[in-house]
């Protein structure tokens, strides 16, 4: 009687190779960033005017200084405080919007009536740029936190809804059949297979929504706010404080990268095939 040859699982050496590859990729990314900074520094020195283009070192000095110093000096906030304000708004709006989007998307996938009702509404709302609603939200909710959170929610909800619906629709029927024929109940199959299989698609939708959320919040803070990174950048611009503008932009870049990194981490947890 013959047996099936055990193939060496490709997994073990491949993992080590992946590790070296990921270090290599991080190194390349850092090199590209350093290259841009060098070009910036050279250009700034050639121009020689810190209002048009400050040097990297001057920007870095400004950034560090205003991390703990308020701007504007009277009634202003530090860069850290502004970052916390913007981040708080994003997190609140993003959490409510994502939760709502997942619920609405699941309801649309599960019920034809809900789908037929919500589909045209989403279709109409989604192409609208959320920042078009800023004046309206200010009229309704004032310039406090509520208008900012609602604005982000407006942007996040349709994106996550569509991503959730698409991901749930894309789960192969045989995957659900397999679960049922292995002895799982319909409820268990729904929770452990259908929703679980859709998780990577939902998280990808959340990543896209996160990018939009930063656009909205900065715009809102520039138009009607008394704090936040957008407010800071606008103030710095009004007083031709170019190094501070760059500091604010750098701050958004770092925060945006960090949030996307967290969502990417979530995606890696949800989808083993992305762990490379």
């Amino acid at each position: 009687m013959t047996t099936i040859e055990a193939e060496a699982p490709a997994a073990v050496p491949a993992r080590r190779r992946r590790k070296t590859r990921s270090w290599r990729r991080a190194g390349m990314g850092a090199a590209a960033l350093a290259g841009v900074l060098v070009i910036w520094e050279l250009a700034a020195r050639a121009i020689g005017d810190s209002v048009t283009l400050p040097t990297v070192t001057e920007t870095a000095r400004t950034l560090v200084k205003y991390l703990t110093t308020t701007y504007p000096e009277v009634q202003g906030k530090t860069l850290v405080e502004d970052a916390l304000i913007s981040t708080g708004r994003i997190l609140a709006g993003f959490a409510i919007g994502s939760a709502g989007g997942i619920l609405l998307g699941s309801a649309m996938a599960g019920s034809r009536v809900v789908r037929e009702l919500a589909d045209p509404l989403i279709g109409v709302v989604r192409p609208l740029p959320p920042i078009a609603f800023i004046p309206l939200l200010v009229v309704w909710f004032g310039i406090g936190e509520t208008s900012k959170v609602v604005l982000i929610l407006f942007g996040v909800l349709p994106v996550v809804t569509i991503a959730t619906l698409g991901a749930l629709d894309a789960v192969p029927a045989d995957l659900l059949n397999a679960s049922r024929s292995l002895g799982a109940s319909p409820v268990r199959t729904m929770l452990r297979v259908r929703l679980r299989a859709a998780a990577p698609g939902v998280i990808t939708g959340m990543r896209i929504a996160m990018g939009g959320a930063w656009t909205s919040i900065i715009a809102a803070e520039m138009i009607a706010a008394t704090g936040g990174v957008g407010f800071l950048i606008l103030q710095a611009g009004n007083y031709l404080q170019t190094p501070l503008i760059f500091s604010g932009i750098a701050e958004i870049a770092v925060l945006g990268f960090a949030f996307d990194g967290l969502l990417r981490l979530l995606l890696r947890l949800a989808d083993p095939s992305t762990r490379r």
Partner: protein
Amino acid sequence: MSTVTALPATAQPTGVRLRDVTKTFRRRRRAGRTALDGVSLDVAPGEFLCLLGPSGCGKSTLLNILAGFTPADSGEVLVGGEPVRGPGPDRGVLFQTPTLFPWLTTWQNVLYGPKARGAHTPEVEREAAALLETVGLADARDAYPHELSGGMRHRAAFARVLINRPRVLLMDEPFGALDAITRATMQRFLLELWQEHRTTIVFVTHDVEEATLLGDRVAVLSGPPGGTKAVIDIDLPRPRSYDDTETLAFVQAKRRIREVLES
């Protein structure tokens, strides 16, 4: 490495009985498409039956009805004397693709059924380990499906079904997407498995050679719409091996099937 003997004992195999099974798929604003038009078929306990027919003849529909994924419009569908009322672990299903859960490792995939049924015991874990050994995946138990080759995925799917000790195996062109060499290996594995345990198997295929090699009988479906055209006995000696495909008796058996197919 061990042989198929290491498999956990499967439960008593049971027979399958189909009487005048019909199925029509409704379509919007058009006449429905009749997939099955009165199929009657008996499968004895422990028998290896191949369902053969051109694509679109309703082979897969028939298997889905047996599995309980789709209800028949009319007719009698009995597995082990009981009418089929939905999917269940007594009928192990192997799909055209392995349909492993991509977020679970091989080990977790195999234990999915016992966990879902609340039958996850240390004893079951020992059986799962033995099964992985049998299908040659002992070293890949912590690998995810995307890290496995096509043949390995199919063997993992096999183990995931066998841990439930099904009384009937329903297989829907399970090796159709594999390369010829891997397919031959899987066929050999299936023959050994069946030789050892005599599980009832209903095996859907459109490959005449595969049907001849594996089946005790080959039910040729006509269609579409599908109906049983003829049931042909393959009285080649058991145990069979891949070498048998070159014998005269094998070629003659193949020819008989092909004649029925083309008539």
